[in-house]
């Protein structure tokens, strides 16, 4: 399975006036592609702190004590803010609990939805052009080196041709895509209009019809819909019919054959939409070389064949053959540099093993190393090794931590000693002070040094594997991948988002998340929306960026059942469609049953039970999971509810043993003394409770849960 996100041994605490609050204590989990992981727990159990750490938006007083969060080969806790900005919202999006705090109260909803789209589209256009140019330039340079000086002029020409036709193809394709999309939307609109007309409904069929009819001519494109005179006549007839309607006309006033005309339109569009798409990449080259050629008469298969042959013979085969050499050249250069760098890295490891580090020497060393590593990166390959890219920021981070700690540690120790002395003095005097000594927050210097060595070692390992992999390098595949990548960039270059398009997309998104009358709502302010509607807007904003991982922090807590289930369905649907990975945070176990593939139950900063949804619901093992399940009523509950007594512990002074022991009916004596380890129940199911120890007394879950599980099993049997 493809692991999207890995969290290892994450520990986070908060520095507060009263002391260090340990919010997250050594948790590990991973998230696979296309999977939903639910994190369940009471407020204050550290679920939101975890998700905020993943997003890189921890509060200012948060300290990440240890651990790593690995996404796409990068440790999110180490990368620089500039790199995080590229991921946050774009790759990892988050939906917050309180929709009002994620919306700007003095901006209209429409502006808030389209703002990011417009800015991002502009930026990505610029960005794509820069990347495209940089890669092509690099390719050109390597071509020169690989083929020798004599080919210089020729190389420049083929790169220029490639640039031109790539962009040309992308332009043609984007025009086609736009019209195709219009046709698909129009078909839906027309079907809706047909439905209204057949129902004799009098609300706003006029508007639907009007938009449909004005859109119809827009779909005219040789590959989509051919505008015959007959269709034009029909459109005119409908238009005249619409015009004759007064302000509040009824459908009867429309021409009698409206239904037939609409049905015909739908039929035409249906056929057109299913037509195969021409290959615009090859067509773009063909049109560039033969601008006057008439291709309208050819069938799409013939056209594709013709243009493909033309492109291959005229340009592509030669281009790929030459490109292979260039790619191999670039790689060889990089490998040579890496080989040279290895010895330097080994010696750097020794440097960090010293008892005390010299600031100047260390800074000089890492500056030199970072430069060497960055020089050795093979920029032409698109299969990037992230270890090389984050080396500078991660090592710098560790070194800075070391030198700040050298200054701060003695200060902190002094404060701690002073406070302890004062406290002891008071005790000696027989007074009972109403404050406690804040524990010293010291940085472990040895750990920091070990981390630095680990970073270097990781890099050495990755270099070694690169060097040994030399013989399996496939230059042809590499070149084809590069061309695909450039094609992608080219289509991003021509993908222009106008305010009108953004508005259309925003309204569509609003419709998708279930906001009625989106066109009117588009111009309203957040305060004019009810809670559920606001949350939908927030979800629409999060989805607008097409993220990779979606973190939902109690997205439905403030919503009512129908909307809750609509929104859960929405998230599920999007998850499947876009193969999203979802982290779903909630306190309501009922909600996660239909969402989650796996569930992690958290209490007081620790994961206490971890398993698939079936494991946790049909065979819960931890008393806290029992308590959570027992405290919520379902439709057959009649008895008194089993509320969990008391409140969660104060995490400034975390309890010695199991944190849940004080509120736990089933607590054993050992629970108050020693923290239970994770016991393995099955390959997918783990729980941290002493009840699972072979020597522990047998404990049954509360009756309410046993009854419910029995009922659920019966129900499932009946259905099967």
């Amino acid at each position: 399975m493809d692991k999207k996100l890995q969290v290892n041994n994450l520990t986070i605490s908060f520095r507060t006036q009263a002391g260090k609050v340990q919010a997250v204590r050594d948790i590990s989990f991973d998230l696979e592609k296309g999977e939903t992981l639910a994190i369940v727990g009471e407020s204050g159990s550290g679920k939101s702190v975890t998700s905020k750490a993943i997003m890189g938006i921890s509060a200012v007083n948060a300290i990440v004590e240890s651990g790593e969060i690995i996404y796409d080969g990068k440790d999110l806790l180490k990368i620089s803010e500039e790199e995080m900005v590229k991921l946050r919202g774009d790759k990892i999006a988050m939906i917050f609990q309180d929709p009002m705090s994620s919306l700007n109260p003095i901006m209209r909803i429409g502006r808030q939805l389209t703002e990011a789209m417009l800015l991002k589209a502009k930026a990505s256009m610029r960005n794509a052009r820069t990347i495209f140019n940089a890669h092509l330039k690099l390719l050109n340079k390597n071509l020169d080196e690989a083929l020798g000086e004599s080919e210089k002029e020729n190389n420049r020409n083929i790169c220029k041709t490639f640039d031109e036709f790539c962009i040309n193809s992308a332009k043609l394709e984007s025009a086609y895509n736009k019209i195709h999309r219009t046709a698909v939307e129009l078909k839906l609109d027309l079907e809706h209009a047909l439905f209204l007309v057949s129902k004799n409904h009098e609300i706003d069929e006029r508007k639907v019809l009007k938009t449909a009819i004005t859109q119809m001519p827009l779909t005219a494109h040789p590959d989509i819909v051919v505008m015959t005179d007959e269709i034009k006549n029909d459109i005119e007839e409908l238009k005249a019919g619409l015009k004759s309607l007064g302000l509040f006309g009824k459908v009867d006033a429309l021409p009698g054959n409206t239904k037939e005309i609409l049905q015909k339109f739908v039929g035409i569009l249906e056929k057109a939409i299913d037509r195969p798409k021409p290959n615009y990449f090859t067509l773009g080259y063909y049109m560039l070389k033969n601008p006057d050629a008439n291709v309208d008469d050819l069938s799409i298969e013939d056209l594709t064949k013709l243009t493909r042959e033309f492109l291959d013979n005229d340009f592509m085969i030669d281009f790929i053959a030459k490109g292979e050499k260039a790619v191999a050249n670039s790689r060889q250069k990089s490998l040579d540099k890496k080989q040279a760098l290895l010895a330097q890295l080994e010696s750097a490891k020794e440097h960090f093993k010293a008892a005390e580090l010299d600031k100047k020497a260390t800074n000089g060393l890492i500056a030199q190393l970072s430069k060497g590593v960055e020089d050795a990166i093979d920029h032409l390959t698109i299969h990037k090794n992230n270890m090389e890219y984050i080396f500078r920021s991660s090592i710098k981070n560790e070194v800075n931590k070391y030198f700040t700690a050298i200054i701060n540690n003695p200060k902190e120790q002094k404060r701690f000693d002073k406070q302890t002395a004062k406290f002891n003095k008071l005790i000696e005097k027989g007074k009972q002070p109403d404050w406690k000594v804040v524990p010293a927050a010291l940085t472990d210097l040895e750990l920091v040094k070990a981390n630095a060595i680990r970073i270097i070692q990781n890099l050495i390992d990755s270099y070694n594997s690169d060097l040994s992999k030399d013989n399996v390098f496939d230059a042809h595949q590499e070149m084809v991948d590069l061309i695909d990548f450039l094609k992608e960039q080219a289509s991003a270059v021509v993908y222009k988002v106008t305010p009108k398009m953004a508005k259309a997309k925003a309204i569509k998104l609003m419709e998708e998340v279930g906001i009625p009358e989106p066109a009117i709502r588009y111009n309203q302010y957040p305060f004019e929306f009810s809670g559920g509607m606001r949350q939908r807007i927030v979800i629409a904003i999060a989805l607008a960026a097409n993220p990779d991982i979606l973190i939902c922090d109690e997205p439905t807590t403030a919503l009512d059942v129908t909307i809750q289930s609509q929104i859960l369905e929405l998230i599920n649907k999007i998850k499947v469609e876009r193969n999203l990975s979802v982290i779903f945070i909630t306190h309501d176990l009922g909600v996660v049953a239909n969402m989650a593939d796996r569930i992690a139950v958290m209490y007081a900063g620790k994961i206490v039970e971890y398993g698939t949804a079936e494991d946790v619901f049909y065979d819960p093992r931890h008393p806290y999971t029992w308590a959570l399940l027992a405290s919520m009523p379902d439709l057959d509950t009649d008895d008194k509810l089993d509320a969990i007594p008391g409140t969660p512990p104060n995490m400034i002074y975390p309890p010695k043993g199991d944190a849940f022991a004080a509120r736990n009916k089933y607590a054993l004596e050992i629970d108050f003394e020693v923290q239970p380890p994770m016991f393995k129940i099955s390959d997918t199911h783990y729980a941290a409770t002493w009840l699972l120890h072979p020597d522990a007394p047998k404990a049954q879950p509360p009756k309410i849960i046993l009854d419910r599980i029995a009922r659920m099993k019966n129900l499932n049997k009946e259905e099967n």
Partner: protein
Amino acid sequence: MKRNFDNAETLITVDNLCQFFKMGKRELKAVNNVSFDIKKGEVFGLVGESGCGKTTTGRTIIKLYNATSGNVYFEGQRIVAGTRSYKENIKQKREELKKAIEALDKNSAEFSTEKARLTAEANAYIKAQREEIKKANYDQKNCDKVYAEKLQKELHAKYEELINNASTDEEKANLKAELDKELKKAKRAKLVTKIQMIFQDPIASLDPRMTVREIISEGLVIQGEKDKKVIDEKVFEMLELVGLVREHAGRYPHEFSGGQRQRIGVARSIIMQPDMIIADEPVSALDVSIQAQVINLLNELREKMGLTILFIAHDLSVVKYFSDRIGVMYFGNMVELASSDELFAHPLHPYTKSLLSAIPLPDPNYEKQRKRIVYNPIAEHDYSVNKPSMREVAPNHFVYCNDAEFEKYQQQLQGK
């Protein structure tokens, strides 16, 4: 266990209540012709999606808004009275009159007498309606005064007898002093304080700059209670009743957890010895484990104090667990009303069905197969000819439907 309230006394009657809000030129019909009544000691659940008007209904009943039209009777006394319906009646009558006069033959001999007769008839009707408006306005404004006067009268009657029967002068004087004191209290008594409210968000509904003692006792102080000892005693009593301790009285709201804050909200509402509590989503902002604590608390209080509760919520499992009868609202209209068991066993209105199909259950296998029924009013109903109204399909089971649907629902019930 669900209890039966068929024979209990009616505490509150909501009669064709309408609450419209102005939205620019348009009018938002937040609550449209909602009628129901709640028996003494009953828990009446009001469910529906957000924006359907359930909170507005609660707030209109407690007079946080001025009702547009319709009445609310509490313990027989009209406390909410809107005037829109009467005004519309007048308008309609005037138009009718105009049409009737136009239809008359102008040249005939009886024209003037006929016209005069019609006008007089209409004017009488209009006058009657105006009287109604006057009465409604008076009740809307002065229901507390009326109630206070009633209380005073009762007190007079009660003490008159006692005083007459008293043997010694001293006793008479004592009784008179007592009467004066009671009268003073009765003068300030307000009927609406017999209804109290618990709000959704325990953080937003408590003043962060007041101690818990001040928050809980505020209602008493406003009613004129000056004796600190009495206030403290009452506050402590309430705190203990809701499961907090005396020491909490001196603290501020931010020092409490969510569940405890909601308990403070409950304590504040029950200190007035209300007959009825409007609980507006009291648990939806709380953690599941704490929800159970608050629901258990409300359940205990209802038994101890004989409270009647209007329970507004969107979590159907909680409503089912807690309520005796349930009303389902959709876009300002009540669409179905039945006892909670009946509603969950035989839902009739398509919107109710869609609501029930959306309840999440802690059962992954069931959940993965669950199909949510989508409610689309345009596709479901054809109200172009026959307008719908609230009809009793089975005993105590009301559905908003027209004639055709009424028959369909009855057949559905019999088929089962």
